């Protein structure tokens, strides 16, 4: 499995969705629920941290468009 830090936000959100879905699935058991909950909580915090740190990379194209020949 890919390490959490290497995953994109979208992948982490998908992982969180899967974890949350487990709580509503037939596989749910109280014995493992606490571990799963802690895992989901850590993932949610990681997503929030990633979101807060994201910046866009803006690059002005060097090419000039005022003449067809350039």
């Amino acid at each position, binding site marked *: 499995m890919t390490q959490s830090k290497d995953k994109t*936000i*979208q992948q982490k*959100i998908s992982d*969180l*969705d899967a974890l*949350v879905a487990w*709580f*509503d699935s037939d596989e*749910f058991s*109280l014995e493992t*629920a606490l571990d799963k*909950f802690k895992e*989901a*909580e850590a993932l*949610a915090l990681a*997503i*929030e941290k990633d*979101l*807060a*740190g*994201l*910046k*866009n*990379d*803006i*690059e*002005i*194209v060097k*090419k*000039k*468009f*005022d003449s*067809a020949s350039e």
Partner: protein
Amino acid sequence: MEKIRFSVSDFIAVTNQTLEYAYPSVEIEGEVASFKVNQDKFVFFDIKDSGGSIGCFMTVWQLRVPIEDGMKVIVTAVPKLTQWGKFSLTVKSVRPSGEGALKKSFEILKAKLDAEGLFAFERKRTLPPVPKHIAVISSVHAAGYADFIKILGDRWGGVKVEVAQVQVQGTDSRDQIIRALEYFNTRDALPEIVVIIRGGGSADDLAGFNDERLVRAIASSRIPTLVGVGHETDESLSDLVADVSAATPSNAAQSIVPDRAEVVRSVRYKIQSVLPRILQVIETQKAIIEERLQYAFLRTEFQYDQTAERFYRLRRVLDQLDPGVVLKRGYALLRGDERVGGEIEIETYKAIIKAKVQKYDAK
């Protein structure tokens, strides 16, 4: 003063040189008359007002907006004396003038492109939900561009934004935007969306976005297009042909990326939604255990009652068998030698009496 003698051709050439020097490019406003297209290549019309009329010539390629007789236009042209001595304007560009003409031109082209299916819903492509690479075509000095970049950054991050700096107003703007579209469409790493944005303006300012060649360039883009031009009330043909149209540049940014604040809220909601589920399961388990305990208690109580009942029944039987109970009712127990003269012992409830047998009659 010495008179200068020209040949006809030289005079025409000198006149044209003089005209070119005096009026290298003029803008003339007037009404279109006698509009016609020859061989699908050459456009002829007159531009006139109440005081005069001048013949105009241009190529179909240069005619970027539909015009018709009676329409008020502004032509950008070079005045010229032809070899047949006729004065005319060689038109470089023509654009409708005034709200009525702009609207008329807009409606003609809209109907034509609509008939070709360029605005059809089936042609619309969906934008990727979270793009990583987008292209923006705009003027970096425009307020609309600044709004777009700010809102894009506020809402999301991690997006590579390539910006093509173009004019978004004036006759050159159309070709610059077309070239920028071609540039992005021929990149090795294609952006996932190409966004064309410009803030609001007058109908004349936004007229470039109704240019037929620009509209066709947007329609043929390999990259899904998003056009956010003008204010909410403005509608251009570029908006209509784009895969997605945004009312303003700010709305364009909102259409492209999710809002990180909403994602955070959603993530927190997901975590919170798990807790009731756990509590519900715990409550259910607790109820099951309580129910089972209650059942066990009731069974124990039942078994106890059953046992106690049996015990009391046996006890009653035992009581019936107890000689003491019989004695209590007034009977006596007799033990000893029953023969006449023999000694016997009589036991009553209250005493034990010794006696001798005086008579014995068998029954």
